[in-house]
Structure formats: C-alpha cells, structure tokens
C-alpha cells in the first residue's frame, strides 16, 4: 500500500499533538509494510526518519503543464465545494482579536501577494515559498500548499491520499480530482473544538468541503465523529472512529525528585494556553485546592494567547507563589516535568482526543480529564470531571494528593488499559480503511 500523506506537522517540525499523532501512526503503518510519502509545508534539514519519506511542499517546482492542469482541477474543486474568497485573509486558528490586528498590520506592509505574483521562477517552471506552522498568513499558505502538493503528487505514484486536518484538505481534494485516487480525511480537531461557537467561516467551510469530498472520514473519537455528523452533515456511514494511541517508548531516564521538593505535591497542566484547553478552569480549581492543601504547587506549561490574562489572574488571586508558568516545553523538558508531577490535569473545554494524558500515564502520573474529551472514551480508569465544575475538579485534585492509594490504583489500572491503546492497532484499522476506500473507487 502506497500512501500519500498530507500533514501540517511532523516531528521535529511540531507545534502540538497533531505531529505526535502523525508520527506514531506512520511509524506503525510502515511496520505493516506501507510506503508513505509525507508532504509537509516545509522540511528543514531532512528530518532524518528512515521509515517514511518526508517531502517538502515548499520549493517544489510547478511546470507550466502542471500549473494549467492544477488550475483546471482547482476550478472544479473551488466551484463545487469550497466557496471562499480568493483573498489573503489574516484569519487563522488559535487566534484572538489582538493577534488579528497584528496580522492585518502585517498584511498591509506586504500588499501584492495574489496568486501567481508570489511565484518565483525556477528554470522553466516556478514555485512558491511557504513557511509552515500557523503564521498570520495561514490561509494563503494553505492555498499555496495545495498547489505545490498537487504538482508533487503528479510526479508520484500512490494508492491512497490521507489528509490530516483542514489545512491539507484542499490539497487532498485537488489531488483526488487530478489523480482519481481515494481520499481519506482524518479529523483531529474541528473548528468548533478550537473556537466554540465563534468559528471562522472560511476554515469551517474548508473543513466541511474536505470531509464531504473524502471517501472515508476518520474521526479521533466518538465525540468528534458525532460533531462532524451533526455540524457538517457528513453521512454517518462514511465516518469511522479510530482512537489515537501512544507510542510505547519506555521512560528513558529516571528523574530523581530533588530532596527539597519531596514534601511537596505537584499538579501539572500541559498544553496550549488557549480557550480550547480550559486553562482558566485549572487556575480556579488551583485556587480552591490551595485553600485546603497549602503544600501544593501548580505548574502551567505551554504558551498561547491566554497566557498574559492568566498571569494577571494568578496575581489577582495571590496564588503566584504556588502557581508557576513553565513556558513552552520541548523534548526532555516535557519528560522531566511529567516525571516530577503527582497529577496531570486536562481541563479541556473541547478536546477531540488529547494524547498527553496517555503520555502522563507512561510516567506513572495519574490523570484527571475533562469529560468533554475524546481520550476519556478510552481511559476508563482516569478521574473525570466536567471542565466547568471547578469544585468537582478541585475535590478530585485534593483526593489524589491526599490519598496515595487512590493515585496508585489509578496508575495501576490505567497502565493496564494503556496496553491495548497501541499505534499498531490504529495502523491495522487504517489499513482496513485504505483497502476499503481503494476497493470502492
């Protein structure tokens, strides 16, 4: 099975859970004999993975012939499914009004960035340069990515297209129109998860178009599956739920708990500090816990648009000496942070899946999950609370910190559950979906 996989993140070009999931998934797929070409917006310095081929969309030459074919196919895709303005838009996910204003200023400085004009000549053909990530110009990057990837796909041979999240759906649709290969759209998060009701219509439109055009839709949880059926009207029988998993890397290092903090208990929040992840509920719960148990420290690791607001709030609550902001953590820092924690809390307002709790369990850290998360569908032995119920959340935090046998029981049973949550199983399910999609077209 040859797979053309389209993604926006892949280690080490990573920003969040999407890249981690793609990594675990492709590794397991490769073990099952799949040949994967993974197209990223931009690959810096090779990547260095031996189980798949990482391709960079940025810099791919588009020949004159390819350009006209892409243009024609694009016309159809545009007309039929995606109805968005052919304009540079400064709207992007995880945004706030302040960030928007910043992006508008940025766009005004560089006015002439229409299709074609940004192209750079490269021999007989031309190409674009894209940055990747989630910059202020994401929408036009998405469009350029789709054209570059389509040009790349015309030179490749593959059996199935697998597109991760809305940024790559346009490319997926285009390639499907050009090559006739089946498209599997994987949905890791919807616009409704990221923004609640204040959705970006353009993003939602693209999400919907991609899901409708796909031959199969893979949702990371029943929660997300229901969402795409209800919000986007995707036919129910097209949606398959494949829960994410966690890579079975054994903990490489043992981190010794320094003697000076041994008497303390540590509670961890790790994730983007945005509305979707519910960091303010974590802080309010921390306030309640500190009233009861003074010897606790709270750590908030990550960055995001709500960070300044939360720092102010911590000061206002006078809990700054017990509530610490660890910033964005990478690689070993994350492991270290997990290893020193006594409890991991994920209070997400809306979490399609959420892989980090599974990683926490690898470090024998018990987890408290919001009921509004996909991962709570697979972890029966985790503590759960509604994200808005800070009293319940605080109560459970207190209980884990006060009763060692509760923490031990949670970890023991979660580890047991984790044994069946493997990327190998995910890969098996995906292979079946590919085969099914191929047999239909």
């Amino acid at each position, binding site marked *: 099975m040859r797979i053309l996989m389209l993604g926006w993140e892949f280690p080490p070009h990573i920003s969040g859970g999407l890249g981690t999931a793609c990594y675990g998934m492709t590794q397991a797929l490769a073990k099952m004999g799949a040949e994967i070409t993974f197209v990223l917006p931009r690959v810096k310095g090779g990547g260095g993975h031996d189980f798949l081929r990482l391709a960079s969309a940025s810099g791919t030459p588009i020949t004159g012939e390819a350009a006209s074919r892409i243009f024609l196919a694009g016309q159809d895709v545009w007309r039929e499914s995606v109805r968005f303005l052919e304009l540079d838009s400064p709207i992007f996910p995880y945004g706030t009004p302040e960030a928007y204003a910043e992006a508008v200023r940025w766009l005004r400085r560089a006015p002439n960035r229409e299709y074609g004009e940004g192209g750079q000549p490269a021999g007989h053909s031309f190409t674009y340069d894209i940055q990747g990530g989630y910059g202020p110009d994401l929408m036009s990057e998405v469009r350029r990515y789709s054209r570059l990837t389509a040009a790349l796909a015309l030179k490749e041979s593959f059996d199935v297209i697998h597109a991760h999240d809305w940024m790559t759906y346009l490319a997926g649709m285009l390639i499907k129109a050009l090559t006739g290969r089946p498209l599997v759209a994987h949905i890791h998060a919807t616009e409704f998860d990221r923004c609640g009701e204040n959705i970006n219509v353009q993003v939602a439109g693209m999400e919907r178009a991609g899901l409708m055009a796909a031959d199969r839709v893979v949702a990371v949880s029943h929660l997300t599956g229901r969402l795409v059926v209800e919000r986007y009207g995707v036919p129910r029988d097209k949606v398959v739920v494949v829960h994410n998993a966690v890579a079975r890397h054994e903990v490489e290092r043992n981190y010794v708990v320094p003697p000076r903090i041994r008497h303390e208990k540590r509670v961890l929040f790790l994730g983007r500090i945005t509305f979707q992840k519910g960091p303010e509920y974590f802080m309010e719960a921390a306030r*309640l816990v500190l009233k*009861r148990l003074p010897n606790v420290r709270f750590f908030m690791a990550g960055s995001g648009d709500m960070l300044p607001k939360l720092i102010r709030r911590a000061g206002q609550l006078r809990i700054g000496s017990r509530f610490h902001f660890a910033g964005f953590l990478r690689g070993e820092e994350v492991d270290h942070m997990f290893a020193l924690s006594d409890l991991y809390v994920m209070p997400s307002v809306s979490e399609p899946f959420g892989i980090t709790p599974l990683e926490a369990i690898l470090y024998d850290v018990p987890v408290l999950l919001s009921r509004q998360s996909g991962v709570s569908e697979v972890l*029966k*032995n985790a*503590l*759960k609370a509604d994200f808005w119920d800070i*009293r*319940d959340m*605080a*109560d*459970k935090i*207190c*209980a884990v910190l*006060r*009763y060692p*046998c*509760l923490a*031990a*029981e*949670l970890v023991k*049973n979660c580890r047991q559950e984790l044994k069946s949550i493997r990327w190998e199983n995910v890969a098996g399910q995906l292979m079946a979906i590919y085969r099914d999609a191929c047999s239909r077209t």
Partner: protein
Amino acid sequence: MPALCLCFDVHEAYRLRRYTVFDIGQSSVYEDDDRNCDSLMAVARMCYLPMNELLLGLVRRYKKAFKCAFAISGTALDQFEQYAPEVIDGFKALAATGSVEFVAGTSAHSLAFLYSREEFDRQVSAHSARLKAVFGKKPLSFRNAEYVYNNELALALQKSGFKAVLAEGADHVLGWRSPNYLYQAPDASRPCLLLRNAPLSEDVSINFSCREWPEWPLTAEKFTSWCRRASDDADIINLFWDYHAFGARHAKETGIVDFMAALPAALLEDRRFRFITPSEAAQKIDPRGLMDVPGFTSWKDRERDLTMWLGNDMQKDAIHALYAFGPRVRDTGDPVLLHDYERLQAADHFYNMSTKWFTGYLSDRPNPFGNPYDAYITFMNVLADFEMRLVAAEKTAKHPAPRKKGAGKPRVRSKKSGD
C-alpha cells in the same frame, strides 16, 4: 423427600451524595435524600408492593404448605419507615400468617464481623431486637450481609443462640459435596449451615431475563424439573434470592412475577416436595457432615469471596480508616454520631469502590457514582468530616477520659451490653 427453603434477601442502600472536600467541616448531610427516596419508591412500586401481595396470596392459598423467609437489612427497614411505610405493612401481614420467617442480620448491612466483634455483636442484637419489635418474633436464623461467612462466624452465632445460618454454597468450599444437605461448622454444634444452591438460585435471580441464555425462557415447569433432577441427592434445596430480582432487576414484562406465582403449584404438584423455613430446617433435618470454611465466602461474583468489597487498596484503606474510629465513637455515646457511624459501615460503600468493572453491577443496583474512584473520594471526604465531629464530641464530653494507649484495637476492649 427434599425440602425447599426459599429466602428473599431484602436490602436497600443509602447512597451518599457527591460530598466534596469543600463540604468537610461545613455540612454533615452525607446522604442523597432525593435519590434514595426516588429509588426506593420506584422499587416499592415495581417489586415490594406487588410481590408482598403475591406472596401473601400464595401463603393464604396453600395454607401451611407454602412457606418462605425474608432477610431484611436494617437499612432497608430504615428506608421503608422513612419513605414507604406501606411496604412494612405488607411484611407485617406476611409475618402474621405464621408461615413466614424473618432472618436476622447486622443492622447496618455491614462487614463488621471482619473488623470489630464488639460492633458486630452490637449490630446483631440491635437488629434482632428490632425484628422482634416489628414482626413479633425473635429471629432464630442468621444471614450476614452479602452472605459473608466463615467458621468463626458460626462460632460467634452459637454464643448468640442462633439455630441456623445461611451461607453461600461456594464451589471451592463444597468440593465434591452437594449444597443440598445441612452441614455443621467444625467447632460449633449449632447453628446448622444452610448452603445456597447457587446454580438454581442464579438461574432465577440473574439469568431469568437473559435472552442469550440457552434455557430462556424459564418456566415454573422447567424449573420444577430441574429441582426434581436435583432431588435424588438432596435433603434441602436452598434458594436464596435477591428480592429485587422480582420486578426490579427483571421487569414484570419478562414474566418473573408470573413465574413466582406459578412456582408453588408446580412444585407442590410433585408430592415429594415441601416448603420449609430455615429455623424449621434446623429443627427437622439432620446435618450430614462438617463443612470447613476457614476463609470468608460470599454470594457475589464468580470467586464468591470478599474481593468485591476488599479487593483493592482504596477499599481496604477506607474500611480500615472507618473501623479505627470504632472505640472512640462508642466511647462518646453520642446517638447522632453512632447513627452516622452505622450508616457508613454499609457494605455497599465499599462495593461501589470495586475496580472489578465487568463482573460488578447489576442494572437494579448501579454504582451511584458511575466509577469506583469517585465513590472512594466521596467516602473519604465524608469520613474526614465525621472525624472532625468525633473530635469535637470528644472535647465537649463532660468528663473527657484520657485516652489509653492501645485503645485503637477494638478486640481488647471489654464488651458492652447491647445498647
């Protein structure tokens, strides 16, 4: 001529409300009154009222030929008195016929026997006195909560003068022997041991409405034929059923009530069968041998042991913390504390903390918290508040006795007469 001993187990649990760490020291209302009331009213409507009426009809129709027994827990009696007194009237009417025996137990439906003999003795005598007061007859047979039993329990009951004790016919204690005889405990000539015929009992109490069960649907005739098959090798067939099975666990629509209505006729048609109550059995039937049960058995789960209540560390932590308070609570003599202390001992609290997810809950007795961890957290919060009240009561006691070392061990304390 095998006898049939029917005993209906009647128990209702008090569910705790979601008592959080912020309630500690603020509120001492532990129970979810609304939920307890709703649930009891529902079961009364579906099961208790119609079944009591049905059984009363059967007893009257077959005169002395149909008999049965009830093991009603103290917490169930409390709930009937509190929410549905007409259920007690139904049981009283059954008691008045003289064909129905009431079996004693622990007033709190507790596992006190495992942790505090003093508490156990107090609860047994309190519950026996209550049954005598309500139904007019001193109970002569005993059933521990959840049919928890071992040799030592028989010995303890001998001292209290019980004639019969009801227990589980667990495979691992029976071995090659049949549960259909009367047995004796190794060191106690009394009480006689009545062992539940687990397969026949559970065909009704568990399997009855299961459509995947090969024997579905079960009729009174089919059940009679099974009893007849067992009767070649039997003095007594003990059928101990959760009363909930009739109407609450298996809805009326499954035919369970009609099954019960038809059963006496079907069985009595065969002249060899007769009905008997536990204490009567102890009088009329001779024990056929010794049954050595050194470890505890119960009627729950495949293992028929204590792992549903004491299988994980949370359960052990909670129950040890609870029973460590025992002597101090009794010393205060505060009736409100004693009452709450008894309620907290109900085996159900620990059952709800069980992590044996897949064998655990039946539809009619769901875990009110949905998962074992919340059950544990709530219980420990309640216990923390209880301890605060206990400390306060100790301080305000008029003559605070200085606490002696070693007072935490219940066994060394002198026994008090039942209060």
